[in-house]
């Protein structure tokens, strides 16, 4: 099994490298580059050359790439071409904010999904199942940004019980209640966007488990419904879900771009959207590399977890 894990890790490394190459190539192909942002047409060619030399843009492309990659590995992500601030410093503030919002929403959505999915799956085609499944189909069709808008309107404007944007009221940065009031609306919007898919997943794996022979054997031996559910089906449904959590890794950075932007939550979302709108390539590329690396790591993690939890996979190695 160790062999399998090592093989998977070795396969992941070139993928990450290729992604960095693609990102760098995109940055170079872009119609507008860092030099354009730092210079003005009035500057003399000497000044422009000086600025180029200062930031290393006079070097051949492959040397620029190696320097950029070296920076990425050492945690120096370069500088924004619009605000000239260090990207790593910005992200160090923004990523924790995003995690604070996404992690609770994701975990709670999964808890609910497991409960609802098990209920629906074990009552296939009964009213409870039809209700839950129907609500899921509607939930999947709901655009997150629209849900957020409606929440803002009803809870923010109409009832006026929750603040509409931001993370803190100015002057109340340390108040936990104030934070929680800001947190609630984006949290609900995210929770609702994660829930339907997850419920569907749990429901369908529950249904698959109920059609397995071992359930029939248990029924034949007269096991009670609760016993079958909690002793056998639950275990088999929950294991793959634990492994699925690995895939949630990239969400911690880019899982709430839309929701964060709407609610002005100071996370990665608005930072990214602003960078896109302002053509701030270095930021865009860092987020691109970071999120794809997390996807690859997440898949790796979930494969390894799967391998650890399901003994049948071990001999694949």
């Amino acid at each position: 099994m160790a062999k399998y894990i090592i093989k998977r890790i070795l396969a992941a490394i070139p993928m990450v490298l290729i992604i960095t190459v693609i990102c760098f190539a995109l940055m170079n192909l872009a119609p507008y580059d860092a030099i354009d942002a730092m210079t003005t047409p009035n500057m003399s060619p000497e000044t422009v050359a000086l600025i180029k030399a200062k930031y290393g843009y006079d070097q051949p492309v492959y040397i620029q790439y190696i320097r950029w990659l070296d920076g990425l590995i050492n945690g120096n992500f370069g500088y924004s071409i619009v605000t000239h601030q260090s990207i790593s410093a910005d992200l160090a503030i923004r990523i924790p904010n995003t995690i604070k919002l996404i992690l609770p929403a994701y975990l709670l959505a999964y808890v609910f999904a497991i409960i609802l999915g098990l209920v629906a799956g074990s009552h296939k085609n009964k009213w409870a199942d039809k209700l839950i499944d129907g609500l899921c189909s509607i939930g999947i069709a709901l655009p997150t940004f629209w849900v957020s808008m409606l929440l803002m309107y009803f809870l923010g404007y109409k009832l006026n019980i929750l603040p509409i944007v931001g993370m803190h009221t100015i002057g109340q940065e340390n108040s936990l209640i104030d934070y929680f009031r800001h947190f609630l609306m984006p949290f609900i919007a995210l929770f609702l966007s994660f829930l339907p898919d997850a419920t569907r997943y749990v429901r369908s794996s529950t249904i698959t488990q109920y059609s397995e022979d071992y359930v029939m054997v248990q029924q034949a031996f007269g096991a009670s419904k609760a016993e079958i559910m909690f002793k056998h089906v639950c275990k088999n449904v929950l294991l793959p879900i634990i492994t699925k959590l690995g895939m949630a890794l990239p969400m911690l950075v880019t899982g709430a771009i839309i929701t964060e932007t709407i609610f002005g939550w100071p996370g990665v979302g608005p930072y990214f959207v602003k960078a896109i709108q302002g053509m701030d390539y270095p930021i865009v590329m860092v987020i691109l590399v970071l999120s794809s690396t997390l996807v690859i790591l997440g898949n790796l993690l979930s494969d390894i977890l799967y391998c650890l939890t399901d003994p049948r996979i071990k001999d694949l190695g």
Partner: protein
Amino acid sequence: MIVMAKNKNDQKRRIENVLSALKHDKLAIASLVFLVIIIALALLAPILPLDPNTTDVRNMFQPPSPEHWFGTDDIGRDYLSRVIYGGRVSLLVGFLAMITCVCVGVLVGTVSGYCGGWIDSILMRIVDIMSSIPWMVLVTVISLFLKRGLKSIIIVIGFFTWMEIARLVRAETLSLKEREYVMYAKFVGIPGYVIILKHIIPSVLPTIIIAASTGIANAIMTESSLSFLGLGIQQPMSSWGSLLQNAQSYMQNAIYMAILPGLLIVLTIFAFNKLGNLLRIFVEPRVMSGEKD
């Protein structure tokens, strides 16, 4: 011949299955009717008495009334007309992006599965790499490189969301490749592209159709999200997403402007997904009628 006849019969039975499932599913009928109406409105919009562009500043922010069924917007334009014209754009993007994405996906999937070897490895590595970038990030980054507008949003969605379809089609091609009729065709020297066109694509067609119906739903969702963020359809053209973006600024005094396009997005996506699910009965008859889901 016998095999052919059996196949025909089987096909007929499957279509009957789908139709009877449709008859018993009121929601599916409602979805179908809804889509027909929406598509007809979108197609017929230019000949209907609708005017989405005349501004009337004396009648700004009129709530829905007999004269303006959906009210008027921030510069007094009839909102019903705007929403119908917005639907034209949203549906157009949905269809064209879906067609692009299905074509690329089917091409890559069949070639990769049929040829195997190094072509397969290279194409599948490309699929792996493209799918390891979160779609929201990928699509927004690509939209940086194109001039914003209708064409680029179709390209962005069409060319960067085909990976799932390619994987599905490749898996089916791999098993079809081992069938006798394909092996025979290969043996008598029929060129590869003819085999793909004549034998493989017709067999994966049902899968493609299902992928297409969810593909439209996804494309409409992506387009509206991008337009909402201001990265999609640009003024003066509008889609449901950009209408919502506009409505966001006037939410306090004109909430109907935010509700109607949103509701249409939800219903359209729901209907396409619903019909896609129903078609699954055609492809996986046993799975759908049996115990497994």
